[in-house]
Structures are given as structure tokens and as C-alpha cells.
């Protein structure tokens, strides 16, 4: 089966999600919170001035990473990257920040995941008994953002499906996932069903099913996953 190198896979995923945001912002301003890692790369491919990035540590209007030598050590995003301001940027305390998130004022969040299951549940915050002990804002973001986008590789490092019938790891939020984009496919959750809407041009539907443990429905208007 066709294998994509990690970097190309990430770029395909984030470009596809960036296109969603450009469509959503064609006639209005939208507000988006990007998780750390691959989701942050979405910002690099969003064009135009109508997608505003929110950082849960208290900033609306997050700009690109600061150039070396021009950093302000106190101006960081939620991944501790030293960032810059965009025009019209605002700062606020953490309760106001999560008020934006939980109160339904954030149009979308993009996060990574360990597992997503066919009921739209997502597990992305902890692997029990490991070296990591933290939840951060993940549960607030999946519960509060209007749309939850998952950006992740289709399979884990052992080649096992990350799209599963039922999450085996501790769940971050139940029934909260709206869209999953991997290097192989785009799925949307609608009325409790997981629907394949786009498939990568390099693979067949049979091949996709082999690496997808979750049950899904194929859209009547199945398209090609393009950047």
C-alpha cells in the first residue's frame, strides 16, 4: 500500500484543513484555536485576513513565531513558542480565554489524537502510567469549540489503525469530533455516523478499509483528498 513520508503527510493534512478555514471565512471573521505540534502548521497555509488565532493562555490574534533576537520571553503561545502579535491583537486572563472557548465563541479547534472512534469520541490527553501527567485545555477545547478537527496520521507508529470502533485510552470528550483528516482520507461525523467524504488519490477504498478499524459510511459524493 502507498506510504507517505511523515512530513508530506503533515503538509497534506494541514493544507486541507487550512482550505476549510478559508472557505468558512469567505464572508466573515472566524476564530480558531490550534493545538501544539502538527495543528500549529495550519496557520502557515491560511491566506487572507479573516482567520484569527486564539491561544488559551490569553491572546486573540496570534502571529507567526518571533524572529531570533526579536523575541519577547513573556509573549508565548500555549505551546510556549515565542510568538508575535497581529494587528488588533488582544490579551485577557485565563478565565476569559476559556470563556471564549467554553462559551461557544471559537469556531473551530484543530488537535492531534491517539485514537478517534466511530462514535466521534476522541482520546488525546494521556497514556496511563506514563511520563506525562497533564490535560491542559484539551477537554475544554473539544467540549467548547463549535467544530473539532482532528489532524493525525492514519496509523500509529506500529502501523495500527488510530480510527477504531471504540477508544481504548482515556477519552478527552464524547461525541465531540466533527472532522478527521489523515494523509489517506477526510471523514465527517454527521448524525452519529462517520462518513468518508474524500479519499487520497493513491489508494483504493479496499486499502483504506484495511487500515481503518472504525466502521464508516462512504459518501454518495465521494471525492478525492487534495491539498
Amino acid at each position, binding site marked *: 500500500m502507498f506510504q507517505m513520508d511523515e512530513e508530506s503527510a503533515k503538509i497534506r493534512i494541514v493544507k486541507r484543513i487550512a482550505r476549510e478555514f478559508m472557505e468558512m471565512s469567505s464572508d466573515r471573521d472566524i476564530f480558531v484555536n490550534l493545538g501544539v505540534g502538527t495543528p500549529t502548521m495550519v496557520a502557515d497555509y491560511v491566506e487572507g485576513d479573516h482567520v484569527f488565532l486564539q491561544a488559551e493562555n490569553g491572546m486573540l490574534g496570534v502571529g507567526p513565531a518571533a524572529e531570533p533576537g526579536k523575541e*519577547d520571553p513573556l509573549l508565548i503561545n500555549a505551546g510556549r513558542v515565542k510568538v508575535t502579535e497581529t494587528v488588533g491583537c488582544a490579551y485577557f486572563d*485565563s478565565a476569559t480565554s476559556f470563556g471564549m472557548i*467554553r462559551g461557544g465563541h471559537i469556531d473551530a479547534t484543530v488537535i492531534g489524537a491517539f485514537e478517534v472512534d466511530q462514535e466521534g469520541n476522541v482520546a488525546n490527553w494521556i497514556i496511563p502510567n506514563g511520563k506525562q*501527567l*497533564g490535560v*491542559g*485545555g484539551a477537554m475544554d477545547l473539544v*467540549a*467548547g469549540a463549535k467544530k473539532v478537527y482532528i489532524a493525525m496520521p492514519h496509523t500509529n507508529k506500529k502501523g495500527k489503525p488510530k480510527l477504531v470502533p471504540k477508544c481504548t485510552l482515556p477519552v*478527552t470528550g464524547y461525541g465531540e469530533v466533527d472532522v478527521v483528516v489523515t494523509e489517506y482520507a477526510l471523514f465527517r461525523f454527521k448524525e452519529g455516523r462517520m462518513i468518508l467524504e474524500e479519499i487520497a488519490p493513491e489508494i483504493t477504498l479496499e486499502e483504506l478499509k484495511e487500515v481503518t478499524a472504525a466502521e464508516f459510511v462512504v459518501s454518495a459524493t465521494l471525492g478525492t483528498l487534495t491539498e
Partner: protein
Amino acid sequence: MGNTITSKKLKTIEEAMSLIKSGDRILVSGFGNSGDPKQLVAALSKQPIKDLTIISNDLGSPGIGLGALLTAGMVKKLIGNYYNWNPEVADAFNAGKIDVQLVPQGSFAEAIRAAGVGVAAFYTPTAAGTELAKGKDQREFDGRMYVLQEALKADVALINAEKSDTLGNLVYHKTARNFNPLMAMAADLVIAEVGEIVQAGSFDPECIATPHIFVDVLVKRG
């Protein structure tokens, strides 16, 4: 400017530290080493006290910021949300040396605000049905499940601001604001580490983020 700055709240860092006791519950501000009271925490880590409950977003990095309190064996319990930046927390927890209570970051922030504004608890959709809702009341409103989150109150809050005036009105710098205005409301004793102290009346009243009613002690950053 020639005016003498006098403030009833201004104390030395030693005087401020003498107000903190073993067993205290202490709120400490900051997010990822931005907006944390670095000098207060460094001084606290040298005090002969123990059994502290530290309520903070994270615990700095190993040996840095709040990490120093754990290294010094002063911590009994942590209440917070993100310790991935300091793996010593997971090590101490897995070894049974400390208790750790994880609260999702938004629930954590709101619980501190609630403590400061006289609200005992609130229902939030965050974490409904998950492991972090275990032991907490869950109920349905309008067809959606919510979790009861109790307020997080403390004996002491250690906060940080860019500037104070002589009364204790505070202004912050960019993302260093984070939990500071919330923690300023939620403790019996609020100690603020500030970079600069100016005469009352110097700030545009519209720009004051924390009104001085919330602040008890000012310590000037050295």
C-alpha cells in the same frame, strides 16, 4: 519625578515569606514560565516549611520555577492541569511521594475565579463522562451532561505583575497576564511581585487590570 513613593503594602521579600506557613494552600500564577512570580518562588523554595499544596497551571521545568519546590521536598499535593513540561511531577506521583489532582485548564481557571467572587461551585460541560469527572456530581441540563466543579480557594496567592502603583493597582504584560488577575481574587493573603512601583494616579484608570482591593503585599522585583 522627585516624589517619595510610600506604600503601606510594600514589604521586603523576607517579610513577605514570613507570612507563609507549613501546610498552606498556595495559588501560584504563570503559564509556561511566563507571568510567574519567579523571585517569590525562588525565595519560597529556601524557606524551612513543608506540606504545601500548590495550585498552579504547571510546575515549571525540573529545578526551574515551581519545579524547585518539588525538588526541595516541600510539596504535599499539586492541583493543576499540565505537568508535561516537568517530568519530575509524574515521577514523584508514580512513586507515591505526592498527590496530584488534575483539573482541566478551563475548569481550573473558572474555579479560581469562582473562589474569588464568592461562588461555591458551578456546572461545566468540560470533562463530562471522562476520568477527570470521577467522584464529581454530573447532571443534565438541556440534554447535555455537565460536571460540578468546586471553587479553588487558597490561604496565599503568589502573583506577578509588570507594574503596580503605590496602592497596589496592577497592570500586566501581554501573555504574562494569564492567571494573575484570577488568583489575585482567590486567596486570604495576596502577595504580588512587581517589576516597578509608580505613584498612585499614574495609571490610566481604564488600564488597571487588577484593582488594588485584591492586593495585600507588594514585593519589588530585585
